[in-house]
């Protein structure tokens, strides 16, 4: 979506039964209050043009009538006070809480309630918005004010240099606004969430396939290269998987460590050599990372991923293979799929087998742009 269109997106506040208590006048410009009459199924299409949907009245919002496109709008749900976690799970499990992903947030003043639900639904710590008030109108004003502050796009300017740019971005945004830290400059928030949904749908079965038939009590070692704030960590069950993440940005690493205490997150130095022994992981993967690196860095990263993966383990790459570097400031180093496959074969001396390939088309995009490659590492283990 063009940036001028993105900037005109509004924050919609669904007040439901509290509509008479919440007034648009008290909210920042660009916020609009909706009542129960505004979310009748025939009127839900209007949600598709929102930047964020804040749901103040969880009990009366028609979540079950939302389409995938409407669900791509990032949600902020305010947990109703006076109810415990088992009750909220029983009522909102599949329809709401179980569907909240990395780009959605949960607002509550109750820390214990948050922790209990966070563990159950594997939410990241940064998904919480801590409320300091309990009245609906005050809560709406507090959240809208915060969203207003966050709505600043960040772009590399005229000169893009991979490591410097991502370090700066991580330091500036990862701790306070992790969703924005990994935000694509020319996307609106709904596009980010839609891309995440499509990627998640493709990656989920491949993560399961990578785990194979091993039982739950055999720990599975997964490594994400370019982990950012750890948005993919929630796809793995911490009880059976040891999740490790690498990133060039200390800011991102710190945010990931704070959000996902059960994971391990390490800094990737400028030489891009991984601080791990050979054959340490069952799975090494990247999501939208190699595309931001020049060819020499791509080669080093693929080679390192191959080195630290055990024979029989998987390497996965979910990257854009259809793109153009339009300006020096563009963060993309495009590489068509055939060139990338040649690079992988060169970096691994051909000791990989292609297990899965899938082209992905993201919503609002005219092209099949993404590609997911899953490869098995062949060879004999050097260590036992």
């Amino acid at each position, binding site marked *: 979506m063009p940036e001028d269109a993105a900037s005109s997106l509004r924050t919609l506040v669904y007040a439901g039964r509290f509509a008479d208590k919440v007034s648009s006048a008290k909210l920042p410009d660009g916020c609009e209050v909706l009542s129960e009459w505004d979310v009748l199924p025939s009127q839900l299409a209007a949600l598709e043009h929102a930047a964020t949907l804040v749901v103040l009245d969880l009990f009366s919002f028609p979540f079950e009538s939302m389409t995938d496109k409407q669900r791509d709008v990032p949600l902020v749900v305010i947990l109703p006070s006076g109810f415990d976690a088992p009750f909220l799970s029983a009522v909102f499990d599949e329809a709401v809480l179980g569907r909240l992903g990395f780009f959605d947030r949960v607002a509550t003043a109750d820390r214990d309630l948050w922790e209990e639900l966070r563990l159950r639904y594997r939410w990241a710590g940064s998904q919480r918005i801590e409320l300091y008030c309990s009245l609906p109108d005050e809560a709406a004003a507090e959240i809208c004010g915060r969203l207003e502050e966050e709505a600043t796009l960040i772009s590399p300017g005229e000169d893009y240099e991979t490591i410097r740019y991502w370090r700066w971005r991580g330091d500036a945004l990862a701790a306070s606004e992790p969703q924005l830290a990994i935000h694509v400059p020319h996307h609106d928030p709904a596009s980010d969430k839609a891309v995440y949904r499509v990627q998640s749908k493709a990656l989920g079965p491949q993560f399961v396939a990578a785990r194979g038939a091993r039982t739950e009590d055999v720990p599975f070692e997964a490594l994400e290269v370019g982990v950012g704030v750890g948005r993919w960590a929630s796809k793995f069950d911490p009880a059976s998987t040891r999740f490790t993440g690498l990133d060039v940005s200390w800011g991102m690493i710190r945010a990931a460590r704070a959000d996902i205490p059960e994971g391990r997150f390490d800094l990737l130095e400028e030489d891009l050599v991984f601080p791990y022994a050979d054959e340490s992981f069952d799975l090494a993967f990247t999501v939208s990372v190699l595309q931001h690196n020049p060819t020499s860095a791509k080669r080093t990263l693929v080679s390192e991923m191959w080195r630290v993966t055990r024979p029989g383990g998987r390497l996965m790459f979910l990257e854009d293979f259809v793109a153009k570097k339009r300006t020096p400031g563009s963060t993309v180093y495009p590489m068509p799929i055939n060139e990338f496959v040649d690079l992988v074969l060169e970096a691994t001396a051909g000791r990989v087998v292609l297990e899965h390939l899938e*082209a992905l088309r993201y919503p609002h995009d005219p*092209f*099949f742009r993404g590609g997911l490659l899953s490869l098995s590492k062949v060879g004999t283990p050097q260590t036992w």
Partner: protein
Amino acid sequence: MPDNEFYVPDDIDLLRMENELLAFEVRFLKTRLGQPAKIPGSSTSLNRLAYLEDSERDLVLLLRRLLESPFSPVLRRSKRFRALEQKYLHSPRLQGPSSPERLAYLEEAERDLVLLLRRMSARPFGPVLRRRKAFRTLEQRYL
């Protein structure tokens, strides 16, 4: 892209890269589908068909060997053995690898071979026959 618009890409470089990506995916899918290729209208894979063809060949060879052996007159007294001889050595073979009749015939041959080998493996002839490598191979493969 809005849902009600046609796909009209205007950038030739992006279009070329997209074609490359989709062509690669098609090549991958064709390769993957090619490995467990199926006989049209049948649930039997090519690997299974090859196995059944092998079992039929082994059965024919085994029957010929038995008929050339000194035990041939004794074996021929058995009605079941004569039926096997008639069916696999003297009847015209069903041709056409993809026909359902041929498939049924091959599966029957496999069953007959297994039954014959079980009989031969039993005492008193089993221990004697097992001294021959060819018989041990058949036992290994089908029993």
